[in-house]
């Protein structure tokens, strides 16, 4: 990266995700903010600007950032509100980065939040489809991933058993993460395959949950970062790419993830990544469905195209594998949409900072985080313990 100001994530905070009937939307956002700031002894007065991410049609609150401006800690400060779909948490983290790396602000708070229990996510997601051609046949995330997974199976030969192993990995990893929603220590491949078929080939346990939760980060400028954290997670690259808006316009969208390829190739070039499997110590990828993680591993070049099933069979992406993918439990275990992609970024930063607790991967130096959402919108961030030159 050749940004004029180096930037690093110096603090993260998450709620305990799940069905949070004990909090309001404002409270859940503030819970993550308070945990984030308190982790470094920071106060809102230390923050120059706030970036908020939330998909407001999910809970049905227009201008949600303006309603909750006090809870977001943004009163009297610059407040940016992004809503880019599933990626929004990552888009929010990227905005934090740009606002710091440009020299505009020195300490920026990013917060993503969602209370899916207070709205109808599937109804809202259905509105992304073409009202005439798509909404009736591919409503919500499940329908989209079913169509995409079918294509992926036909193209790569990946099996339902291999996909089920992703579900097992995620829900078992989640048991080590105090913030995760779905924790299933005894889950088996057979249980995944026996779970209700939602839309072929997606079983209930192949799919992410609907969670309530929030996540916050603080991005700080060069000189500040070292003072605020013993081991900051320096940003080495960011990239964004989106595909065409209607799935039918970009065939084989899951098998060939053009936007993930484009964004990751750009980020790899910026960060000097030559062999992702070798060069990354951990990855937090945005996998709303089991099949998606396998396809993403291929498109991120963790293996050759068509070899995603083999990768999980060989245990490469398990917590004790060569490249642990989603040690946090991933989206399959926790999915408060407005926060989900920021959780990927925060978890990657926690791994770099050595603060991931029971799901810490040993000796992490470089981590990858991705966000994914509507029209295959992809955000990529590469973090490292080493300050960029």
């Amino acid at each position, binding site marked *: *990266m050749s*940004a*004029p*100001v180096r930037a690093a994530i110096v603090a993260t905070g998450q709620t305990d995700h799940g069905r949070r009937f004990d909090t309001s939307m404002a409270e859940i956002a503030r819970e993550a903010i308070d945990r984030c700031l308190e982790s470094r002894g920071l106060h809102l007065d230390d923050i120059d600007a*706030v970036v908020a991410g939330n*998909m*407001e*049609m*999910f809970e*049905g*609150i*227009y*201008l949600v*950032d*303006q*309603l*909750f*401006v*006090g809870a977001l800690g*943004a*009163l*009297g*400060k*610059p*407040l*940016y*509100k*992004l*809503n*880019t*779909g599933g990626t929004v948490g990552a*888009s929010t983290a*990227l*905005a934090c*980065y*740009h*606002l710091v*790396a*440009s*020299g*505009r602000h020195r300490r920026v708070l990013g917060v993503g939040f969602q209370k899916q229990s207070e709205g109808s996510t599937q109804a*809202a997601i259905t*509105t*992304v489809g073409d009202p005439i051609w798509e909404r009736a046949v591919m409503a919500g995330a499940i329908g989209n991933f079913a169509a995409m997974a079918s294509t992926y199976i036909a193209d790569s030969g990946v099996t339902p058993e291999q996909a089920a192993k992703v579900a097992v990995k995620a829900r078992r990893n989640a048991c080590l993460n105090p913030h995760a929603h779905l924790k299933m220590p005894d889950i088996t491949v057979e249980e995944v395959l026996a779970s209700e078929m939602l839309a072929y080939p997606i079983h209930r346990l192949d799919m992410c949950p609907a969670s309530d939760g929030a996540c916050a980060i603080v991005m700080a400028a060069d000189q500040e970062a070292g003072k605020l954290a013993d081991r900051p997670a320096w940003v080495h690259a960011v*990239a*964004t*790419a*989106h*595909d*065409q*808006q209607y799935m039918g316009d*970009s065939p084989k969208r899951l098998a060939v993830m*053009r*936007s993930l390829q*484009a*964004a990751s190739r750009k980020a790899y070039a910026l960060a000097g990544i030559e062999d992702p499997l070798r060069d990354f110590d951990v990855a937090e990828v945005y996998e709303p469905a089991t099949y998606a993680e396998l396809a993403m591993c291929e498109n991120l070049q963790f293996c050759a195209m068509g070899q995603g099933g083999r990768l999980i069979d060989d245990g490469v992406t398990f917590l004790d594998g060569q490249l642990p993918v989603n040690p946090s439990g991933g989206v399959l275990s926790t999915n408060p949409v407005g926060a989900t992609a920021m959780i990927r970024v925060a978890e990657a930063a926690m791994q770099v900072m050595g603060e991931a607790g029971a799901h810490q991967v040993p000796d992490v130096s470089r981590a990858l985080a991705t966000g994914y*959402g*509507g*029209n295959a*919108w992809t955000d990529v961030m590469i973090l490292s313990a080493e300050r960029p030159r």
Partner: protein
Amino acid sequence: MAQHGSDTWVIGLGEARTAAVLEDVSINEFAWEAIQPALREAGVELRQVTGAVTASQDFWDGRTISSMNVNEVACGSLGSEAKVAADGVQALGYAAARIADGDQHLNVVVAHAKESEGDAHTIELAAFDPYFERPLNPDDTLVAAFQAQALYRTGAASPEEAARVVVAARSRSEVLAAAAVEDVLSSPLTAEPLRELDRAPRMNAACALVVCDDAKRNELERPAVRVVATASRAGAYWRERADLTDMTPASAALHDALDQAGWALGDIELIEIAAPFAFQHLMIAAALGLGAGEQLVARFERGEVNASGGWLAGSAESVAGLHAVVFAARKLRAGEARRALVHATTGIAAQSHHVALLESAA
């Protein structure tokens, strides 16, 4: 803005038609109607644009991720788009940050709203607390009426002065009929003391900029305007404001921008304010230090403030501020002014404020 990296330059400007109803274009086509001329002015094709920052509201588009409607025409497939849910002036500020840090070099900034495709009351009702306020069926007009009552009680402005702001705006409008003070004051009451003509009519509007860094500007050699500074400040939710007429966030945003630019307010020759209600213009202008009372109203009438007519002359949610940027940039390029200030608002009762400072390249 760019204290360390590249400056941001506006090298292309485009506007779609502004009209109450446009049934011959989809949202996607409508955005393209603004983007295409901006690209033409910049002398670039869509495939050369690598990213975009868009401004729109999901609720107005009736679609979650409303930018999906436009990102193909804003920066093409596999481009890098980000969307702010605020006025386009904030989108310009974010685009400037992405350029200043070297991530982007040639981008589109586009704001769009087809207000004819949504029901304003239903949408604005969704901006209120769902448990305690929505049962009372409020909208922005209702709260603006409280705000206007508070302002008029102070004696700082009157319904007649607000009506003169409307008259001044409509006299400069290319899409709205002219009106007299009597027309405003006798138009239907919407919420005491506000009349129908006190508010900007609901319109379809879109506008676009092509922005770039120093290197692209030198390469493309197009007439350019420099984005010198941008700033935003969030105000309190309407119910939590001790004084609804307090526009401190507007003045705070302005002073932040002036500090970045190293300018004084007196250095600025062209001033545009974007707010949906006429009386809000008087509150905001006063907060920005542009005067008060009769003297301030006269500045609107003479076109010293809002020479374009502003939102009251025809624009839309998320678009009005960027519309003013397009107007100001044209004036700067034409040599009619050297420095410009554009202000915009987001939220119920002018809650949050955005500012951009622009300068002629000459």
